[in-house]
């Protein structure tokens, strides 16, 4: 399994450091001024400049842009002349988060060359010249004994790459473009990556792929801090993947979250149990009526994919709501006055939350981690605190690829056999596969298609903190000590 889905380490270090500094600034006695100072504190006078940047001023300008995303604003739409202190002030006054959760720091994009076909030094200028002969567009000629591509004529078809016996011709890829499953991000005329929000499904793959850390999430951390500071009863809804993120027991994690100022903590696995029961019943009913297949509907990235790119899949997608939906419904019913915050492994849930009045804010695991650093909370030293409602093993396993299909299967009667098909991560290829199933109205591989936008499931989400393997181990331990959902039924 390709498991290295996390953001390159150095850029996530930067992003997290900025978040910690923003939180500390918010909790200090002068939020605005201390926010303004962040780029200067991180790159003081005479400090070293990383060799991929020209000078300290450029470096600070980029840190300023990153802080803008941390404050929850769009980097593209923010004027250069606005001070970070003004933005801090604006962030504190904001009532609702921005509609689209991603923003691109184009100044960091510069180093990345546009996608093209490139002849390397390995070219031997061979006699056979298969490249010249293969190119249908006559774009290649031999100059000074080496092959040369005319960019005006080249159509990026890549035929020459395949035929060169020395593998001397390479396709230069743009990491974000090649990671995006739906072609929603591309470099514009100025060489800056731009997201087409009509196409974007908020899967976060571009954010994970960019080696410069140029794609940022607009954080809602200030909004949440503000509610807690104002004494609002703020409740955390923790998605199952969170239990694999920090080195401690689930019960200690609950205590650590209470220390941040939350009034209570609910497991989203509790809502997952409702999803499982509803979806199993729905699957049974659909099959009885002769349906060929059904897909799951818990992944926000996949749901946006269907809505925007594969409308013909809608009849096959389960009508059951997501674990976040049911959890938020329970929380608001039990605490009508509460502000709800969903703890998410990915950016896609921010979009889902915008459409759900029961979910007020979404924070990702990097933001939670940064918050713990800012307050000096050591999770492993926290006491243990039990959850009021115990979720099932199956619900707690939703974050692992295959976990949702397995949960549904557990509740199906014997005469309704499910044959799960697992789509472990959206790519250009798996999107094509899904389109095919929808168009044909059937899937030859099975009848219950589980779709996870992220490879590995939510544990591979774009804003997770822990590496995949140890996270999986920790979640699996928790699952193994939990009771089966069957016991809730009997």
């Amino acid at each position, binding site marked *: 399994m390709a498991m290295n889905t996390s953001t390159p380490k150095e850029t996530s270090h930067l992003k*997290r*450091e900025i978040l*910690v500094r923003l939180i500390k600034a918010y909790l200090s006695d002068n939020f605005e001024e201390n926010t303004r100072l962040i780029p200067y504190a991180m790159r003081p006078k005479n400090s070293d400049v990383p060799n991929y940047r020209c000078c300290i001023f450029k470096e600070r300008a980029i840190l300023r842009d990153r802080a803008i995303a941390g404050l929850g604003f769009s980097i593209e739409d923010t004027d250069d002349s606005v001070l970070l202190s003004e933005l801090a002030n604006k962030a504190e006054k904001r009532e609702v988060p921005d509609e689209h959760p991603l923003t691109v720091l184009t100044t960091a994009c510069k180093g990345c060359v546009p996608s093209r076909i490139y002849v390397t030094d390995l070219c031997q200028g061979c006699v056979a010249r298969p490249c010249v002969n293969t190119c249908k567009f006559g774009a290649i000629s031999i100059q000074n004994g080496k092959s040369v591509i005319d960019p005006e004529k080249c159509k990026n078809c890549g035929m020459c790459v395949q035929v060169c016996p020395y593998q001397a011709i390479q396709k230069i890829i743009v990491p974000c473009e090649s990671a995006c499953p739906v072609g929603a991000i591309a470099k514009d005329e100025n060489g800056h990556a731009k997201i087409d929000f009509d196409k974007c499904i908020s899967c976060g793959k571009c954010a994970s792929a960019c080696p410069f850390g140029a794609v940022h999430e607009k954080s809602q951390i200030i909004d949440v801090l503000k509610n807690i500071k104002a004494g609002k009863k703020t409740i955390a809804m923790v998605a199952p993947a969170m239990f694999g993120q920090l*080195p401690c027991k689930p019960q200690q994690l609950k205590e650590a979250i209470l220390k941040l100022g939350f009034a209570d903590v609910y497991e989203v696995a509790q809502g997952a149990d409702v999803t499982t029961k509803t979806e199993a019943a729905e699957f049974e009913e659909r099959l009885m009526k002769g349906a060929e297949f059904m897909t799951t509907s818990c992944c926000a990235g996949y749901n946006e994919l269907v809505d925007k790119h594969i409308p013909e899949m809608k009849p096959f997608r389960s009508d059951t709501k997501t674990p976040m939906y049911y959890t938020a419904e329970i929380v608001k019913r039990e605490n009508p006055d509460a502000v709800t915050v969903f703890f998410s492994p990915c950016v896609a849930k921010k979009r889902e939350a915008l459409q759900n009045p029961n979910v007020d804010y979404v924070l990702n695991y990097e933001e939670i*981690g940064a918050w*713990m650093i800012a307050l000096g909370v050591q999770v*492993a030293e926290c006491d243990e605190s039990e959850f009021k409602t115990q979720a099932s093993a199956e619900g707690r396993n939703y974050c692992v690829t295959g976990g949702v299909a397995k949960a549904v299967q557990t509740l199906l009667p014997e005469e309704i056999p499910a044959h799960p098909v697992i789509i472990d991560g959206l790519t250009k290829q798996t999107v094509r596969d899904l389109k095919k199933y929808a168009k044909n109205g059937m899937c030859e591989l099975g009848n219950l298609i589980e779709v996870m936008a992220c490879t590995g499931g939510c544990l591979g989400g774009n804003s997770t*903190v822990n*590496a995949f393997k140890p996270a999986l181990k920790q979640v699996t331990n928790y699952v193994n000590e939990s009771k089966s959902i069957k016991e809730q039924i009997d």
Partner: protein
Amino acid sequence: MDKKISVKVCLGTTCFVMGSSNLQELIEMVPKKYGDRVEVSGVPCLGLCSIDWEFSKAPYVKVDDDVIKEATVEKVLKAIDEKLK
């Protein structure tokens, strides 16, 4: 035989979030690579992150008494190799 080299990977919350989550592989890798010449373990907060603004230099790893700041797998392996020279 010389004294064993000790490698302590900080798995306290600050270091973990700032990147030692990705250093956990050292705990399997080091014994495979160096056998029993090196002793490696994940340890709770080394107390370095809370001094002033030192969280920004996390994750920390200690190789014997030497502190490695902003540790990466490569940096730690290099420090071990130096000691073994």
